[in-house]
C-alpha cells in the first residue's frame, strides 16, 4: 500500500492531507480537486480550506472537534476517487497578462536565458507563449506560484538575493513563475514586468487569482505597458480573462 495520501494534524489548528512529498503536476491537481471536494462536502467543523503545492489544509479547532471523526470522513472521501487522476475543479479562469520582457524594467532576462541555455529571443518566445497554472498562492497575499514551465526552465535560484523587485515583477526559477504582490527581495530572476496587481485590498474582490487558474504572459513593448498603466486603474494591468470550463 502506498504511503500517500497522508493525513496529519497541524497543531490544534487543523488537519493536512498531503498527496506527495514533492511537487508534481498530478499531486498539485489532486490537491486542487480534493480541496474542491472538501468544500463541496461543507462539513460544519471546517472553518476554511487551503492548498499548498501538493496538500490540502482544513482549518478546524481541534479543541472543539477532536480529529478522529474528521479523519474518518477524510479517509472515506479520499477512497471515493483516484485523486492523482482527478480532473481540475470547475470555475477556473484563464488570464492573458501583458508583459514587458527584458529592458531596464526586467533586467535579468538575459541572465535567466543563459542559465536555461537558450538565446534571449528564444527565451521570450517560450515564456510569452507558455500557459501555466496557479499551483499555489502564498508568501504574500494573492501571490501566485505558477507552473510548470518546460524542463528548459528548471534553473536554480540565484546564490545572492536581488535586493528588491517591484510589485508586478514576473520572476522565474525551478520551472515556476511568480508575479510579485509587493516590492520584495528575491532569489528568483526578474525576467518580465507586468502592471497586474494580485492583491487589491480595497476592491470588492481583493484577490485576482485562485489556485487552479491559468495564465499566459504575451509580450508587449515598454510603450504599450506605459499606455496600459495610464489607462487601466482596475488592477488588471490590461489583462483579459475568460472562463475555463
Amino acid at each position: 500500500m502506498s504511503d500517500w495520501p497522508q493525513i496529519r494534524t497541524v497543531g490544534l489548528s487543523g488537519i493536512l492531507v498531503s498527496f506527495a512529498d514533492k511537487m508534481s503536476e498530478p499531486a498539485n491537481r489532486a490537491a486542487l480537486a480534493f480541496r474542491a471536494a472538501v468544500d463541496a462536502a461543507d462539513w460544519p467543523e471546517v472553518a476554511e480550506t487551503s492548498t499548498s503545492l501538493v496538500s490540502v489544509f482544513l482549518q478546524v479547532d481541534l479543541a472543539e472537534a477532536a480529529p478522529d471523526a474528521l479523519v474518518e470522513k477524510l479517509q472515506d472521501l479520499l477512497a471515493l476517487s483516484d485523486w492523482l487522476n482527478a480532473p481540475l475543479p470547475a470555475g477556473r479562469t484563464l488570464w492573458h497578462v501583458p508583459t514587458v520582457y527584458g529592458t531596464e524594467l526586467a533586467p535579468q532576462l538575459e541572465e535567466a536565458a543563459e542559465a536555461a541555455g537558450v538565446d534571449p529571443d528564444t527565451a521570450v518566445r517560450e515564456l510569452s507563449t507558455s500557459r501555466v497554472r496557479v499551483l499555489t498562492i502564498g508568501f504574500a497575499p494573492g501571490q501566485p506560484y505558477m507552473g510548470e514551465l518546460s524542463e528548459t526552465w528548471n534553473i536554480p535560484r540565484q546564490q545572492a538575493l536581488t535586493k528588491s523587485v517591484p510589485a508586478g515583477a514576473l520572476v522565474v526559477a525551478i520551472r515556476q513563475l511568480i508575479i510579485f504582490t509587493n516590492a520584495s527581495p528575491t532569489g528568483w530572476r526578474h525576467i518580465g514586468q507586468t502592471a497586474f496587481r494580485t492583491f487589491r485590498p480595497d476592491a470588492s474582490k481583493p484577490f485576482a487569482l485562485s489556485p487552479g487558474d491559468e495564465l499566459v504572459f504575451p509580450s508587449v513593448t515598454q510603450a504599450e505597458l506605459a499606455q496600459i498603466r495610464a489607462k487601466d486603474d482596475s488592477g488588471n494591468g490590461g489583462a483579459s480573462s475568460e472562463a475555463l470550463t
Partner: protein
Amino acid sequence: MTAHLGIIQAGPGLSLQDLGRPGFRAQGLTIGGAADPVALYEGAALLGQPADTAAIEMAGSGGAFRASGDIRIALTGAEMAANIDGDPLIWNASHLLPAGATLTIGGARNGSYGYLHVGGGFDTPPQMGSRSSHLSAGLGRALQDEDSLPLGQDEAGQVGMTLTPVTRFGGGAVRVVSSMQTTSFSQDTRDRFCQTQFSRDARANRMGVRMDQPGDGFATEGQLTIVSEVIVPGDIQITGDGAPFVLMYECQTTGGYPRIGTVIPCDLPRVAQAQMGATIRFEFVEMAEAIALQTRFLSELKSLPSKVMPLVRDPANIRDLLGYQLISGAVSAQANPFEEEN
C-alpha cells in the same frame, strides 16, 4: 459628533488590532490580529463590549493620547507605566479619560505588548472585515503622531473595574504538540530541545519570535527537503542557522523549513509576551492533554466578564487611590494597599 482619540506622540510599534482577518489563508493571507489576543478579551470584559473590538496594540512602549470627549479606556497586556495628566493609573483596569486630558503610557515593565482599549471601540473603516493592520501584507499602517482615530458609540457606562490578568507574563514552560516533521529530528535532538533554556531574541515581531540559546543550534538528521506546506501560528520552525523560530499570527501561510513542534494556542500569548531575556522552555504534551488545556483556556476566556471587579470597594473611604501601585513590582507583594484605611 463622533469622539476621536488623538495621538499626540506615538511609540514606534503602535497599531490598531482586533482578532484578525480569518478566511483568506487560501489566498496567501494569514489571520493577523493582536499578538496577544487574550488582552483583547480582557479589555472587552473590562469595558463590557465584544472581544472583537479593535484596540491599540503597543509593542514595547506606548505614547501620549488625548480624547475629544469624555471616554472610557481600559489598559491590558504588558504592564506599562500610565498616567492621566500626571495621576498614575492602575493597569488591567478601566478608567475615565476626560476630554482634553493627556493619557501618557510609558515603556513595558513586564511583557512585550500592551493594549489601550476604548469604550465603543475604534470606528475606522474595516478592510476585508477587520480593522487589524497586517503590516507584512501591506494592510493598514503603524499609527503615527497626529493621527486622529474615530471612536464608535459607547453603550455601557462603567469605569473603575479591574480583573486579574490571565497568567502569561515572564516566559516559563510553553506546551508543544508534535508537528509534521517532529520525528525527523532525532530523539536526542528533541530531548536537548526540551532541556534548553531559551530566551526571546531581539529579532522578534508580529510574524515570529526567534529564540536564543547558549548552545549549538538544532538540525534534522541529514538534509531534509520539505515541499512547502501550511504554516499555522505556533509552529516552531528550525531555520538554516538552527535557531527555533516561533511563528505568530502575522506569519506567512506556507513554508519549507522543518517544524519541530507547534505551541498550543493557549500558550502562544506567553511566547508573544515574553520580554527580552525572559526564559522559555518547551515541553511536549500529548494531543489529548493539549485539547484539555486549550478547552480549559477557552472557558476561562469566556468567563472573564464574570471575573471583573470594582477597582475600589468603597471609593469614598480611599483617598488618592490612583497613587497606589496595586500590581507593579515597585511595592512589596505582601503590602496591602487598603490596610491603612481599615
